[in-house]
């Protein structure tokens, strides 16, 4: 599936995750060098802002792989809008000539937790420790039952996807990564 990626030891990865006000993104180079991360704001029912933002990120960072959350996987609880966004970003990846990979929640957890199980917040804590200078200061306080999701969590989700892709690609067969399922 990723013939172009096989020739590059550590392709530059741009990971995109749905976020509260738009999309979270993370750019990984080398084995685990986080060269960029953040949130790109903009939400609309047709995901036009998200696609525009990711297009700009692709133009800026020239990634060799675009990593998205697999919102079609069995373990996904994503709604219609996010699934539509994922389809549009896959199409954008193809149009931009960037290899696209889908990583499910379960796969991301497998990459970050020794027993493959853990909460989103616990994952963010691990990543804040792993990249203390880059994102350590942005770790939000633990969410209480009545809190909405913190603005920064989308960035941590994107970093999680990027690192999971890097770890899984070297360890598990490529077929473990999801592929685009047509409507």
């Amino acid at each position, binding site marked *: 599936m990723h013939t172009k990626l096989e*020739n*590059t*030891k*550590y*392709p*530059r990865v741009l990971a995109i995750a749905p976020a509260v006000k738009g999309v979270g993104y993370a750019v990984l*180079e080398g084995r685990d060098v*986080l*060269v*960029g991360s953040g949130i790109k704001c903009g939400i609309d029912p047709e995901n036009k802002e998200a696609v525009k933002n990711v297009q700009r990120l692709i133009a*800026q*960072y*020239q990634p*060799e792989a675009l990593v998205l959350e697999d919102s079609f996987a069995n373990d996904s609880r994503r709604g219609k809008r996010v699934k539509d966004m994922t389809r549009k970003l896959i199409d954008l990846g193809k149009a931009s000539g960037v290899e696209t990979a889908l990583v499910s929640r379960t796969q991301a957890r497998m990459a970050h937790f020794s027993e493959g199980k853990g909460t989103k917040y616990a994952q963010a804590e691990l990543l804040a420790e792993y990249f203390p*200078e*880059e994102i350590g*200061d942005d770790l939000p306080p633990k969410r209480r039952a009545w809190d909405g999701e913190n603005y920064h969590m989308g960035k941590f989700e994107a970093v999680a996807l990027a690192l999971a892709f890097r770890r899984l690609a070297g360890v598990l067969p490529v077929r473990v990564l999801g592929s685009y399922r047509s409507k």
Partner: protein
Amino acid sequence: MPSPQLPNYLLSNRKRLGLSQEEVAFLLGDRKGSRVCRHEHFLRVPDLEVALAYEAIFKRSLSELFGGLFQKVEKEVGKRAKMLLEQKSTQSPGRKSVQKKRKALSDLAEC
């Protein structure tokens, strides 16, 4: 084959130090952060004085901060070194200075 580097790593280094664009601009002697923004988004290449200021601020060498640009320049220098080496191949190798020159050009051509 290693992946090509980004033109520069100013943004990630700025974030590493927890500085804002305006703060880096101030350190560079600017009033606004717009020039820093253009550098970070690869829209402009800074001049030598500003590049050296970035090195002083981030405590990283120029070739590290401007990795992609350095790779491009290194490759071009390598090509020209190879051409020069071919031109000099007719010179007698006996003299020490010629040997030194050939070694230097040969090392450059390998980049």
